[in-house]
């Protein structure tokens, strides 16, 4: 895992850049119903969407944005290294591969229901290419009040020094809403994704902000299934992670061996259970909120210490 990956530099650039906070973004699947709706919303939020890709629609325009047949043409025309992928899951592998083959360094993979093997292959390929994937099955990434690549609504997020990482979309909105209401604005909101395989998992995400001075706390919204929280707790202890961390875990009362909406939200035996996650967080001194509303209360206590 490359620790040099600087997501802030990729998404907003350096202050000396002429396009600081206006870095070009392309959208694959821009003319689809989902892609088109969110292209408009992203642009009105401030994202500099410079090109779209839809095979067969090259030469046309959508919402003033030029549409190309291929990523190669879109990248050549725009110089973008960021792609939001909005294509349906069965076409994701091909779209992501094409992006990585043409110089894209950050893929934001929105579609839900991507087959696991496709995700693993794209993850491995991105590693080879020195690129990063967020998702799939993610609401995307947002730098509040500056830009977003994703489908999250604008209203829950405000500018600040907390970072929110979440395995769930709507819970990221809900928790950010409560944080904003309590005066904890966010420096970054990043959806890990609800699938078993995450291009950027919790540990990768924590690495992104490890030494950033403009981040004073981290909120991690998890859920049952897998061992991402357990691994994260271990990482926090072993690497002496210094920023205060507060967690939330959804699905404490879910039955075992039932997939609770997300492909990744399933408990087998003790593997993936909320108890296992809460116990491991306790070892890392990470308090776990009982409800989204409790998150800012715990954060306030944690920051006072």
């Amino acid at each position, binding site marked *: 895992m490359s620790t040099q990956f600087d997501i802030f530099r990729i998404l907003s650039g350096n202050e000396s850049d002429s396009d600081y906070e206006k870095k070009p973004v392309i959208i694959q699947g821009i003319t689809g119903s989902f892609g088109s709706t969110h292209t408009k919303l992203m642009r009105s939020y401030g994202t500099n969407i410079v090109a779209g890709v839809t095979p067969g629609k090259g030469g046309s325009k959508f919402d003033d944005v030029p549409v190309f047949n291929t990523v190669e043409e879109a990248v050549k025309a725009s110089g973008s290294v960021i792609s939001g992928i909005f294509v349906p899951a069965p076409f994701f592998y091909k779209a992501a591969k094409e992006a990585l083959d043409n110089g894209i360094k950050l893929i934001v993979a929105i579609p839900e229901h991507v087959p696991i093997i496709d995700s*693993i292959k794209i993850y*491995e390929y991105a590693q080879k290419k020195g690129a990063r994937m967020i998702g799939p099955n993610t609401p995307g990434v947002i730098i509040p009040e500056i830009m977003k690549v994703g489908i999250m609504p604008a209203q829950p997020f405000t500018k600040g020094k907390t970072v929110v990482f979440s395995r*769930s979309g709507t819970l990221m909105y809900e928790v950010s809403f409560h944080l904003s209401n309590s005066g904890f604005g966010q420096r970054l909101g990043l959806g890990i994704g609800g699938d078993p395989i995450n291009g950027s998992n919790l540990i990768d995400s924590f690495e992104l902000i490890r030494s950033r001075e403009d981040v004073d706390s981290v909120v991690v919204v998890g859920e049952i299934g897998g061992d991402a929280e357990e691994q994260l707790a271990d990482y926090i202890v072993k690497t002496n992670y210094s920023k205060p961390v507060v967690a939330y875990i959804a699905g404490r009362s879910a039955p075992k061996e039932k997939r609770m*909406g997300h492909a990744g939200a399933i408990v087998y035996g003790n593997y993936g259970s909320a108890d296992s996650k809460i116990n491991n967080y306790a070892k890392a001194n990470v308090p776990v909120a009982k409800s989204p509303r409790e998150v800012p209360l715990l954060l306030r206590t944690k920051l006072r210490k």
Partner: protein
Amino acid sequence: MRLLEYQGKELFNQFGIKIPESILAESLEDARIGSQKLGFPFVLKSQLTVGGRGKAGAIQKCKDSSELETKFIELLKKEVKGELPRGILLEKMVDIVKEIYLSIFLNRSKRCFSIIASSEGGIDIEQTDNKIIQDISIDGISGELANTIASNLNIPVKSKESFVNLLLNLFRVVVEKEAELAEINPLAIISDDSLLALDAKVIIDDNALFRHEDLQKYLYLSDLEKQAAKNGFSFVELEGDIAIIGNGAGLVMSTLDMVTDANGKAGAFLDFGGKATSETIYEALKVISRLPKIKAILVNLYGGIVRTDLVALGILEAYKNNILTVPVYARISGAQSEKAKELLNGSRARLFDTVEEAINAVVLKINSN
């Protein structure tokens, strides 16, 4: 999708992994005919998707036709963890020399597949330290690696080549059929030195089913689950009397936890995802209306992707058409939520500003009945 044992074994067989001779019987008549082909004695194995069937007594030896008459019916009616079997497998017994454990599973945190193997077969793999875990590339397992694993498991020389081939074939099952797990527990070395998969636990990646027509026949959904799936909902039936509907799996799970914390009992989990319209909420309520045990519905909506006003229209429509006969307690926030509130005003749906208030109201209502 977790396959039944016999379905997993069908896949194994296709990929050259040997399995004991067996016959699936769905009725006593099937079993009688099967027993004549197979010959006594054999084992009766309930076909279930839940674990722990051995401990629950859902695997029985059967020595003659009089035992078949009693034991077969007993097993067919026996629920394990709330699940009735979908058939009983009649399986020939074999002379076991050694039992091992072997599986290939999706290692989520490492984002690859891993092999787990143990020289103790038939055990609960979570409970033993005697195991090898080996991460593997999606590109394949080398013969060298397979040989090393065979040596570490102390596979007898005469069976080593069979083991190596079996491991490579098991990996093909995982990659070609897109499984999250393919487990053989136990894998038996029998008296002629060959290897037999005595059990099969295979979980197929649901998201890959669209490109595996041959596996779609194994999809087994209740009518309600079918109805939910057709509409793109995630639906799980639970044991209580409050149905929880929302947009987003995490949010619905979170609501389920809060209801449980408030001493309410959830009877259904329904996530209608990001594409909710008045039609989708209407269909969601239709699914819920088929569960007579549901006494109230809790709707928790965080707007944004979802047009909450359209959701409100769907709820009104359901009351109008008598689909809905129970009260709805709703918390709706986000895009167009003010409009949604106006629309629902005066209906049997009650609106709350916070989910906590909605939960308190619904639990109070249910528990006072």
